[in-house]
């Protein structure tokens, strides 16, 4: 009798991971919409302090893959790839400097990447928890965002926006003289407003 009970218990334990692994997997194909970026109506901006004054820049080219369902966060994920050479700070000379070896080093590290396989609900909305890679350095990062859908011409379009900040020196953005933070601050504010189309 003891052996039987014990055996049934073991069987149940063995079955549990299988159940958990399969049910979200099944939901992905059934209910989690996949979104891609509408580049023309999306922005990825950053604000940096240069010589004591706030300056703005943005990236002209980046890709977003977003699987999201508020009802199935376990199957939701976010993947962002930024083309670092598309940086635009509104000044050619400054852009060239930023792309150079001491800062973005775009020749060696053409892309930055954020991959989040964990999406959590927060008081204000959601957060994407994952790994951010800039200039070849990968660190844990969490990006808060809000998301809503709007039906436009019969299509449920997604709008995602949020703000976060990145400490540039954590990723080696700033070698040599640029390691100093008196002229260009370490903290860079990042904001994004994305229009996402299901596909």
């Amino acid at each position, binding site marked *: 009798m003891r052996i039987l009970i014990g055996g049934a218990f073991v069987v149940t334990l063995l079955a549990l991971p299988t159940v958990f692994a399969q049910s979200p997997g099944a939901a992905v194909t059934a209910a989690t919409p996949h979104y891609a970026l509408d580049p023309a109506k999306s922005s990825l901006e950053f604000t940096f302090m240069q010589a*004591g004054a706030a300056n703005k820049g943005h990236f002209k080219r980046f890709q977003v893959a977003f699987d999201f369902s508020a009802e199935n966060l376990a199957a939701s994920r976010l993947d962002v790839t930024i083309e670092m050479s598309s940086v635009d700070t509104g000044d050619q000379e400054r852009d060239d*400097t930023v792309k150079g070896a001491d800062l973005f080093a775009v020749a060696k590290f053409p892309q930055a990447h954020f991959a989040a396989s964990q999406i959590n609900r927060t008081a204000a909305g959601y957060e994407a928890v994952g790994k951010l890679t800039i200039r070849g350095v990968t660190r844990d990062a969490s990006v808060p965002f809000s998301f809503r859908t709007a039906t436009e011409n019969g299509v449920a379009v997604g709008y995602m926006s949020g703000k976060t900040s990145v400490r540039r020196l954590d990723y080696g953005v700033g070698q040599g003289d640029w390691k100093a933070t008196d002229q260009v601050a370490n903290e860079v504010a990042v904001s994004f407003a994305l229009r996402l189309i299901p596909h």
Partner: protein
Amino acid sequence: MPLRNTTQRWGAVAQLLHWTIVALIITQFTLATLFDDLPPGAKKLALLARHKSVGITILMLAVLRLAWRWTNPTPPLPDTLKPWERSLARLTHALLYVLLFAVPLAGWTMSSARGFPVSWFGLFTLPDLVPKNKALYEVLVTTHGALAWTLGVVAIVHMLAALKHHFVLKDDVLRRMLPLTSNKTQGSGR
């Protein structure tokens, strides 16, 4: 030394403003020479930022100085001056005042036209005077430089005139702008 001007001497406030601005103008020429030779980079950025902050300081001091001049007696030019010398002195002084405003304003506008906001020593950011405009920026680079050199030349003329008053004419024109001295003579001239 009294704070306010008298009809014989410049007071402490006017002297402090005068000599502080002299020191800051020399600083500006030094910084400009230093960063002009540098390639774009963190060092150049640091020197440029300092140059802008000092320039805005000069502009603020120029405002104070003009306000102080308007609310104080002005020691008159010496009676010994010929009419043309008197006119030249007036023109030089007027030009100096105009340039104390024009040079920093041209620099500030130039920075705005480039799209780089000006910060005063990182403590506060000044408003942009014009929207970003590359063509205007190029014009202002030249303007700012030309005005600065004009200021330099006029300041040298001003300095040479002061030295002439002191060493050749031996009057009180320089002494009355120097601290820790007194006028040799009473009255506005000799």
